[in-house]
């Protein structure tokens, strides 16, 4: 029992340390940039030719430095970040000053969660089903065809796949909208609302599902199956004359499900940083877009907010998996 407690405690300590290191890295890197949001904003005002009083600009600059918390030495700023994080305050967004980061994340989070939970689960399920089956029958023609497709599809740059899908299904065969999150006016929950949401999420989802299901999840489950089926216990089962379906279900799938579930857990944890490229291509209003905007506008607080969410997501998923693993898999012990 105490062994278990020590195990749990050590995992939690490791989790905390991981988060601390992650936050520190995310704090340091943007501040090393030779650019800062105040000057960016001033430069922007210059470049669009807005008429300003020349002396007013200088006072504007000074005030913005104060407001954005960019005065003070790095140690103070760092401590300030932790003070805020521990009180669950992410501070104001700089690019949308003075709206709090938490508010903006709150707006974007449901979109990302909706889109990604759905597409990750679908692509995981699909990919594993076809991957396992074709791994099991790796000599069959369909298996070779699928593998070939996966190997070719997997390395295609993501952006290009998304654009091709957009061109095909929003222009040539216009069954989906070009982008955006929702186009319905009026309030209230209705079937139309759901359909509208689904229609907009379809292309982004497909462009995550295809490379995911046919690329990554397929290849990994295919690989695992191919390996596992050379294990002695599988051969034994086969030599015993068990039908394929039973060998597949009882002997293989369980063993493959273990590592794949782990990977699924991590993938779900990773949802919190959004799907940057997809969201950019399809103007999907999720966290990835927000993060990208924050990066190009040097919105430190926003970068920190979303990264923290993502760091917590992945490390919590890791922690949970570590803690739960021994419960599922008898060959792993707490130690």
């Amino acid at each position, binding site marked *: 029992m105490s062994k278990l407690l020590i195990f749990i405690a050590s995992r939690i300590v490791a989790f905390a340390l991981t988060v601390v290191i992650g936050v520190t890295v995310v704090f340091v890197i943007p501040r090393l940039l030779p650019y800062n949001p105040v000057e960016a904003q001033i430069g922007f005002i210059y470049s669009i030719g807005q008429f300003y009083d020349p002396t007013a600009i200088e006072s*504007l600059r000074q005030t913005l430095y104060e407001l954005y918390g960019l005065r003070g030495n790095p140690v103070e700023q760092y401590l300030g970040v932790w003070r805020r994080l521990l009180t669950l305050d992410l501070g104001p967004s700089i690019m*949308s000053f003075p709206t709090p980061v938490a508010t903006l994340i709150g707006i974007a989070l449901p979109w990302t969660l909706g889109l990604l939970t759905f597409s990750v689960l679908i692509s995981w399920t*699909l990919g594993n089903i076809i991957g396992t089956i074709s791994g099991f029958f790796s000599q069959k023609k369909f298996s070779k065809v699928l593998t070939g497709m996966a190997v070719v599809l997997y390395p295609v740059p993501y952006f290009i796949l998304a654009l091709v899908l957009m061109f095909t299904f*929003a222009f040539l065969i216009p069954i989906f909208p070009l982008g*955006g999150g929702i186009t*319905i006016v009026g309030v209230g929950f209705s079937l139309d609302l759901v359909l509208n949401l689904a229609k907009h999420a379809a292309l982004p989802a497909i462009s995550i599902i295809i490379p995911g299901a046919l690329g*990554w999840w397929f290849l990994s489950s295919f*690989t695992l199956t191919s390996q596992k089926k050379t294990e002695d216990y599988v051969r034994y089962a086969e030599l015993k004359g068990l039908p394929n379906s039973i060998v597949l279900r009882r002997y293989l799938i369980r063993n493959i499900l273990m590592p794949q579930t782990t990977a699924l857990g991590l993938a779900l944890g990773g949802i919190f940083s959004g*799907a940057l490229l997809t969201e950019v291509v399809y103007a999907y*209003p999720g966290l990835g877009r927000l993060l990208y905007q924050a990066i190009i506008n040097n919105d430190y607080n926003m970068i920190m907010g979303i990264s923290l969410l993502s760091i917590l997501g992945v490390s919590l998923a890791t922690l949970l998996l570590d803690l739960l693993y021994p419960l599922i898999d008898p060959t792993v012990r707490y130690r």
Partner: protein
Amino acid sequence: MDLDGKIYGVSEKIYMLPILSSYRMNRKTSYIAISAALVLVAALALSAVPVSYGQLPLPAGVPRGDVLVIENHWGTYANPNNWNPIASPGVGPASIAPGGSGYQQLCKAFLWYINTSNSMLIPWIAAEPPIYSPDFTSLIVKLRDGVYWNDGTPLTAEDVVFTLKYLKEAPAPIGVNEKASVKDARALDRLTVLIELNSPNPRWHYFYAVIIYGASGILPKHVWQGKDPQKFEDNPPTCAGPYNLRAVDPAGNWFLWERFDNWWGSKVFGVVPAAKYVLYINHGPDEAKALAMTKHELDALRTLLPEQAELVIKNNPYLKGWRASAPFAWPLDPCVKGIAFQTKTPPFDKREVRWALAYAIDYRTIYRAFVGIDKSTPTPAALPVIPHAADIETYYIPLLDYLKQYGYDPELVLDIARENNAWWVEKYPVLGFWKQDLAKAEQLLTAQGFKRGPDGKWLLPDGTPWTIEIKTTSGFEMESQRIAFLVADQWRAFGIDVKVTPLESGPFSTSYSIGDFQVGTFWPGCSQILDLYANWFNRWSSKYWVQKKGEGGHGTGWNTKDAPIPELDRIVDELERTDPSSPRAFELYREALKIWVRDLPWLGFFPTPFYTFQDGYAWENWPTFPENYYMDPVSWWSQHLFVILKVKPTGRAPTKDAIMDPKPLQVANTPLVKIASAAEWQSLVGGPPPAAGVTTVTLRETVTQRVTELRTQVVTQVQTQTVTAVDWGMLSGVAAAVGIVLLVVGIAVGRALGRRRPAQ
């Protein structure tokens, strides 16, 4: 770990990949695979089920022909519910209120617009141009009678005074202009405001006049009073324009505005806009916008790169741009794009070096690279002045001989322009550029101590190899990026190592602001109107450079702080005391431009052509050059309001509530300012207090106005509240406040009563 493709988490993905082993299995169970494939197909098909594609966000039953669809060029707004137009400085995507949401075109209360095509003032909420005192230390603004907010409250001098004081008192950075310039403001009568300035300034009203965008608007006192200027969201916004906000995308991509049929302008000017709805929408990346335009799901668009424009041109036969047919591109964007030198950093601090680099440029190649497939051409602009017809006559032609001394060749690209039918070739065949002159460049550099190394590459005077870094844009203003790569190529051919660094908007603007660059494709040369002072001309004077190195400001334009140019300082000083529309002002500008040419602090090529497409499928009467050029076709400027008021349905798209033949708007263009003589000023300011009794009339008028709107028996209740103001001193403020409060109470009561009544 991530879902987005190839990067996040590819690490773990690929590491799990390999090991495909072969194993012999010959069981007939491929049906599993087939059913899996069926599942896949079914899943894909299912997600495709909702095939109906009314893809624009419109209320149920609204036909396409009732809606004007305009691009939201800022993209996704992180918080689409904050309509506070003052909290965030600048007009960037930080704040939703300006920019791509339609707020500044349809809603914001502007005193004046400036017509960029003739540099005249269009009084809007103000009745006439501002009247300045002879010494330019005060001005009087007279408001138009009969203007009211869309909630029925009159828009009066009190609102103007409130706005100025509110901004002045709000915590910085809000109202920095007002803090710096306004000493006091007070209402002389219901429609007249006297503004006293801290220092003489004949251009103060530019803060409140729309030049292109970013001008301050008037805030409704009855809404904003007592509100936190930073936190108040004003959601939905209180407008004084022909549309009210109807719906907002919770995701921040689109904004739907609905026509307000009792708009003050409909009463005053007798016009009602044709479109029942105006939709501002972000379809996504440029590819998506181009596709939307070919599907008639976008009526007006900011711009596309020529290559993407090609897609639209080929697929949309109804397309219009700056002209009704090709060439389409609008060649008069208000900023001359080109490259700027950091005049503080050696060797670019020497004008000879800057000139040498200018002579190393082959302008024809650059010009040709910007000729579009539809034969659109840029308008050459060697001076930092946009060559509108008026500007060519005021600046380019008078300075022609002077420019020629510096190698200006007015015929340099005339043949290319002529074969592409550029708008200026016939009437003004004077637009050219500095001719490429490698010998002169060589000689200028050698005279400065530069040498060529054994490999033919240039060495700095100290003997080290010369490498130039050009900072340029990435992901926005892509035309400037193309300029950077073209120039880099030409300088390399001349023997200088050049590196191009593309930067996103944040880093790019920062470099500009703090001057952290050697050479960059920045554009200090913006000029919307003939009065060049309106755009940073003031910063050419050394007195306005207050920063030290590293503290900002070094990049913006022409830093003359450490090496003042006395004649330039004198010109700026005199301009600050000169009527901006007087001949003397233009003389001074020409003098300043000569100094600019001599020193060449930056090198402008041309305003890059903007494919400001307008779709003629559902709407017509777009502004097109030259036959119907009533306004620049620029959907992101506040002036686009005048286009929205003019367009009419073609009938190709089904309509229901659109007005088929709207009455055209007649609105006066006036001089930029009025300057009172001492006697006139005395009579305006020092005269007896204005007569009483004016308010009653207007208030009653607005009350009637409300009645039609509310359709209840508020009438009697409110009419009793008419106020007769005797003295517009202390009393008037109190009286107006009481009046407004009573009015609001009355309306509230009326509305409450109305709600209780059964439906009629």
